[in-house]
């Protein structure tokens, strides 16, 4: 793996490469950390949420068949909630990205373009 750490191939002087500098900067590390801190738990959450529905439907059919209003039972409500949750997660992510990721990334942009690194 050690050879893969060389950036830019042979002949590129490493100190003036803004990419390498940006890559090792604390800002970029924080950007990555924030992104992963959101995406990985959220993925675990929605996968288990989908699984919960399938498992309940398979092993607790009587629970799912409890009627709430008229012919509308828990299973049906659960199913529709899957839509709602997908939409909610996406909304939360879009807001999170605009609030926490975009400012940081445009800061990195400015530095690279301004030749700070």
């Amino acid at each position: 793996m050690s050879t893969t750490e060389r950036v830019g191939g042979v002949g590129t002087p490493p100190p003036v490469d803004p990419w390498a500098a940006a890559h090792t900067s604390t800002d970029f590390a924080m950007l990555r950390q924030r992104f992963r801190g959101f995406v990985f738990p959220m993925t675990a959450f929605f996968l288990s949420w989908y699984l919960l529905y399938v498992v309940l439907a398979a092993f607790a059919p009587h629970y799912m068949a409890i009627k709430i209003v008229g012919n509308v039972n828990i299973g049906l409500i659960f199913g529709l909630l899957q839509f709602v949750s997908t939409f909610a997660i996406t909304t939360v992510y879009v807001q999170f990205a605009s609030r926490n990721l975009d400012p940081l990334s445009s800061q990195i942009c400015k530095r690279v373009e301004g030749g700070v690194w």
Partner: protein
Amino acid sequence: MPGQAVFYVTIGAMVVIAAATMLTGLYGSKVRSTSDFLVASRTLGSRWNAAAISGEYLSAASFLGIAGLVLKGGVDALWYPVGFTAGYLALLLFVAAPLRRSGVYTLPDFAEARLGSVGLRRVCTIFVIVIGWLYLVPQMQGAGLTLHAVTGEPKWVGAAVVMVIVTLNIYTGWMRSITIVQAFQYWIKLTALAIPVFVLLIHNAGEKPGVRGSLGASALPHFSHAADITLDHDVVLEVAAPMVVNAVGNEDGRFANGTVYWAPGEHRVAKNTRLHFDAGSRTPVIRGAVLDNDKWLRPLGSGSHPLLATYSLIVALLLGTMGLPHVLGRYYTDPDGRAARRTTLLVLSLLGVFYLFPMVSGWLARLYVPELLVNGNTDAALLLLPRAALGGWPGLLLGGLIAAGAFAAFVSAATGLVVSIAGVLSTDVLPSRLRDFRAATAAAWTVPLAFVLAVSSLDLAQGVGLAFAVAASSFCPLLVLGIWWRGLTDVGAAAGILAGGGLAFATVLPAAAGVLPPGWQTLLAQPAVFTVPLAFLTMVVVSKRTTDRIPVDVSRILLRLHAPDRLGLSEDRDLDQMAPRSGMVALPRMRGGRHRR
């Protein structure tokens, strides 16, 4: 209602939609450069792009298939729309922004840019074509079915009509206008479905209680009026309670002409048999459908391995969306990752609103067209619903509107797929680009057409599900590992794609042909639950064994994928100037220092 009127109304509605589609296409067809041609212009904005993605995505499976599945399988079928929408969430979280930054817009381009291997590019090319073909088949089947249901034309005619419209649209409209066309198509589809469903719901609410029966408790579906059904293929019917039926033809291996007594259990009825059911008699249902209404309202009421099959389906839909060639290309129309996120959110809302209607109509179909449970043509549920429920001119007009909307669904989904397949064929298979795009378009049709003529038994939604399974087992691991794991090698990626995607494809074909024994059919008809992990595992293991093939500039490439958006802007200028063999131009900084062993 005279058959002639049905014919003219439906054909009229179809002609209007086809003409509107072509006019919209011509409207934006002033195209100069190659990059306009393939990538479309970036001037259209998120709202147009989101509607275009939705329009292209809502295919035969969404329009007709889900209503049919809800009629047959009940709440289980909710998984299809849930999976179809959730797939965009996975795409958004893992793939959309990095892929957009990479500057490539086809999967083979991504593979070559990320791992620098022409061999891997070829493997990806083959899979783009295979997935596109698998996805085209249900579109053409759906078109055949629609035309057959309303006019009685043989099923190949509808498929041929779609081919002609799509080909003309591509020859005249180009890609820029196709974004407009696809956006326009979304609103057509929504209107064509929403208006009839609203009218039917109002009609249903106004009916005297008890006339149609309710879906509650232990009620079995029954005929509210006398029905004559002529079977167009052999069926196995399940009967719940003893019943009497009038049959002319071959039933349970003997010739019947008159009243027949059916004990509870399974009964084989041969093709061309005519069955007559009196008003109020219970509906026997085709094997695989859910027998009573109570079970129908509960999830997982059907099938032999319901848990495994359902979870497998979710895996396929959730992870397959990102591997669909025509979906990824659309994201390139967004100027940056931020716009890509906004587009995805809009796509989810548009899809969510749309999917309410097929679900409701599946429920209505169980009340008004139970005969489809006997002859097994559940995919025709939406098409027949208005005439069965309303009758007269209102039913005729609304039926025509649905048929025309369905046709719009086939045309728009098929357009996106054919553009993707033809794009890959002309870049990677045929020589000399622009001139051959038309030839490639023609070539893209050949295999699915042959398949449509040969196979007819598959449910539309299931057919689409198979395309998702292959996509999830091949391109999803490539994208996720390619974007998130620096240790991936070209050999590992190719091995994973061939193992996972290849196995999925190998099980898809016999499943589609319906030649498997029943126990295996459930398992293999939706193979994603074991082929996706297989693909991931193969990629990781083989990559670990070939670490010397990790590209030397992997850090630079990964940084490029995850770096802030605006740093990628220079690439777009390159792309505007050069013909899209885009992997070659879109990642100029990635090209240096490539290993060649």
